[in-house]
């Protein structure tokens, strides 16, 4: 009889049932989608970091940040005989430079050994981040004083700029010097060889390179060919792609660490040390140990690194975590309040009914169970619809698979000092390390638990208020009030 009465009452008050269930459904669907998106953004963030810092990297150690203007600014300088002058007076210039990351000091290579010796460190690997910039162009003969300049036949200057009929181009790409013998942690741990081979231990000291697949396609580079790095021709032995959903790897070109140090003429240094802790619980302790042992360095954990991810991924994170969460809470609160108000209003409208039931012997508990049961079913009904809408939303997101860009802020900082005005290489590095990541909304058991939990909770809250109201009804007063 309990369920018959419950079913008849809910179907007899379709409008109220639909409104309450719809309110809860929208709220629960929002919570599900926002939660799934949060998980998706978190995954994307992890992938963005892994594509840059490598899979399994728990900590990174970098040199101290330099003040603006500090350090060696990048500049192309051409002295006498810096170019070849043709018969028509046009001078052809070409210069390639390999420079370390702007705005941050390097670390002595022994830092890697120091870190490896710290308790709790599973492995450590150093890498040298470089930017290769090539200046090439033609300068016309400088006209004699008073002569009028003549515009070139083809009009506008090409590439990076030009003047008075000259033209020049600045090409830039990132180079990462890595230890070929230590690839379990660091940038190469998140790449997959798509063609050729990876760098091997025997490659140390050799002019060999592995090239990012996207960069190789753009620049027509193939295995067996060469790529000019710092003026040296490096034999391409492999093409790599990202093993995460990121479209690009951490760098355009990977060469042996010792070769990179030699070409950049920076001595035995590294830019970053990638550290893997022995246990997840020990990460904080290892971070503290490293900070104590190497006070002049910057030690970052995964959570620190996550905050450095910028681009539209950062915007998505902010949108989901702030607006999405608050919107979900607001809608959920409104839906619960709506359910409570409708339940209380329903009890008030049914004063005669509940008064009669009490008059014929129904206990308070039995009346409360009836009211609470109706609210609970409304909640579950809303939960089921919300779950369906939520799953539909998740499916839609995964089908659409929106692409969002990400870039670690540290790269932007590197570019800060090297704008075109400085003539340095930094300005190009930002674009090269921005990667596109496909945003997914993963479906987890938590989503189902959350939907059912929220539906039951909302039903319980509404039922509790309605039941409390029904319990307070005195049968005599109830019947007197409707007489």
């Amino acid at each position: 009889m309990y369920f018959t009465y419950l079913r008849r009452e809910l179907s007899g008050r379709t409008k109220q049932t639909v409104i309450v269930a719809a309110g809860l459904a929208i709220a629960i669907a929002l919570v599900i989608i926002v939660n799934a998106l949060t998980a998706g953004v978190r995954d994307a963030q992890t992938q963005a970091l892994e594509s840059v810092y490598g899979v399994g990297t728990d900590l990174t150690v970098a040199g101290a940040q330099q003040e603006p203007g500090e350090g060696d600014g990048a500049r192309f300088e051409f002295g006498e005989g810096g170019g070849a002058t043709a018969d028509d007076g046009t001078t052809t210039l070409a210069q390639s430079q390999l420079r370390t990351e702007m705005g941050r000091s390097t670390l002595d290579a022994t830092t890697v050994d120091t870190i490896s010796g710290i308790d709790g460190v599973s492995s450590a690997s150093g890498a040298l981040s470089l930017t290769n910039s090539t200046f090439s162009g033609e300068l016309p003969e400088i006209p004699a004083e008073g002569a009028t300049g003549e515009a070139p036949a083809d009009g506008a200057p090409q590439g990076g700029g030009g003047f008075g009929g000259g033209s020049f181009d600045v090409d830039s790409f990132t180079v990462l010097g890595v230890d070929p013998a230590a690839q379990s942690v660091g940038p190469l741990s998140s790449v997959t060889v798509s063609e050729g081979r990876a760098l091997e231990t025997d490659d140390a000291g050799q002019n060999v390179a592995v090239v990012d697949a996207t960069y190789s396609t753009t620049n027509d580079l193939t295995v067996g060919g060469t790529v000019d790095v710092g003026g040296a021709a490096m034999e391409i032995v492999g093409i790599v792609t990202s093993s995460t959903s990121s479209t690009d790897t951490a760098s355009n070109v990977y060469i042996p660490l010792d070769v990179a140090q030699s070409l950049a003429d920076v001595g035995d240094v590294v830019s970053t040390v990638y550290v893997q802790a022995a246990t997840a619980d020990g990460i904080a302790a290892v971070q503290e140990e490293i900070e104590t042992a190497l006070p002049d360095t910057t030690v970052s954990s995964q959570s620190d690194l996550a905050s450095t991810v910028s681009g539209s991924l950062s915007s998505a994170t902010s949108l989901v975590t702030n607006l999405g969460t608050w919107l979900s809470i607001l809608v959920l609160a409104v839906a619960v309040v709506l359910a409570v108000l409708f339940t209380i209003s329903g009890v008030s409208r049914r004063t005669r009914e509940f008064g009669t039931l009490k008059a014929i012997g129904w206990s308070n508990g039995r009346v409360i169970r009836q009211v609470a049961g109706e609210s609970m079913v409304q909640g579950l009904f809303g939960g089921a619809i919300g779950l369906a809408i939520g799953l539909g939303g998740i499916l839609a997101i995964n089908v659409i698979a929106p692409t969002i860009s990400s870039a670690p802020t540290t790269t932007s900082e590197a570019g800060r000092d090297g704008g075109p005005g400085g003539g340095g290489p930094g300005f190009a590095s930002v674009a090269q390390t921005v990667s596109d990541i496909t945003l997914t909304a993963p479906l987890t058991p938590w989503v189902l638990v959350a939907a059912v939990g929220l539906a039951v909770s909302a039903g319980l809250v509404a039922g509790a208020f309605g039941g409390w109201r029904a319990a307070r009804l005195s049968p005599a007063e109830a019947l007197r009030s409707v007489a």
Partner: protein
Amino acid sequence: MTMTEPHIDAPNEPTTPLYRLADVSKTYTQKKRVVKPLVGVDLEIARGDFVTIQGPTGGGKSTLLQLLGALDRPTSGRLTLGDTDLAAASNAALGSARAREIGFVFQGFNLIPTLTASENVDMGLEPLGLADAERRARVAEALAHVGLADRADHRPGELSGGQQQRVAIARAIAKRPRVLLADEPTGNLDESMRDEILDLLQALNDGGLTLIVVTHDSAVARRASRRLRLEKGTIRDITR
């Protein structure tokens, strides 16, 4: 026991009244005004009686019916239903008395509109905790007794006023109560329907069920074995 056989009291019980009221008063506050619908009422109602209570509106009839129906407690005085002191009983005891010993019939029928006739009757059996088969049997028997066996699956909206009141009576008698309390049971009915309901109530009383009916209708009062008049909170017997 069948529906025509009401609650059977112990052999020595017929000698004692079903209800005994001694100096019963009721006071309550309504809109900051103290209302005294009953003042020092002394009354005994015998088993098997057909009692009507008449009087002007606001004279305390409904309040007295609520006290007799264990819906409320008197402010002072003593009120017993059999051996149960309704004035001092707990809420649970009052609820139990309503569930097992008292049947209610209201002027507005008070049926649940979303339920069928048989389901409405079944609602009266809900507190008794009977087995399903027993419940089904009692529902069918009660509906047959009021002549609505063929309308068991109809909802109140599909029944006439007289039929709805019959369903309400079936709901009241299905539990086999000691007493049936009716508040203006014919107040919403036309003359022919009124007579149908009165015939039904008369038949129940003839079967041994105690009837206490609050009414303005002299036609109802004429059928009673005992007539009471309640005016300004005091009661007097006007049976001739």
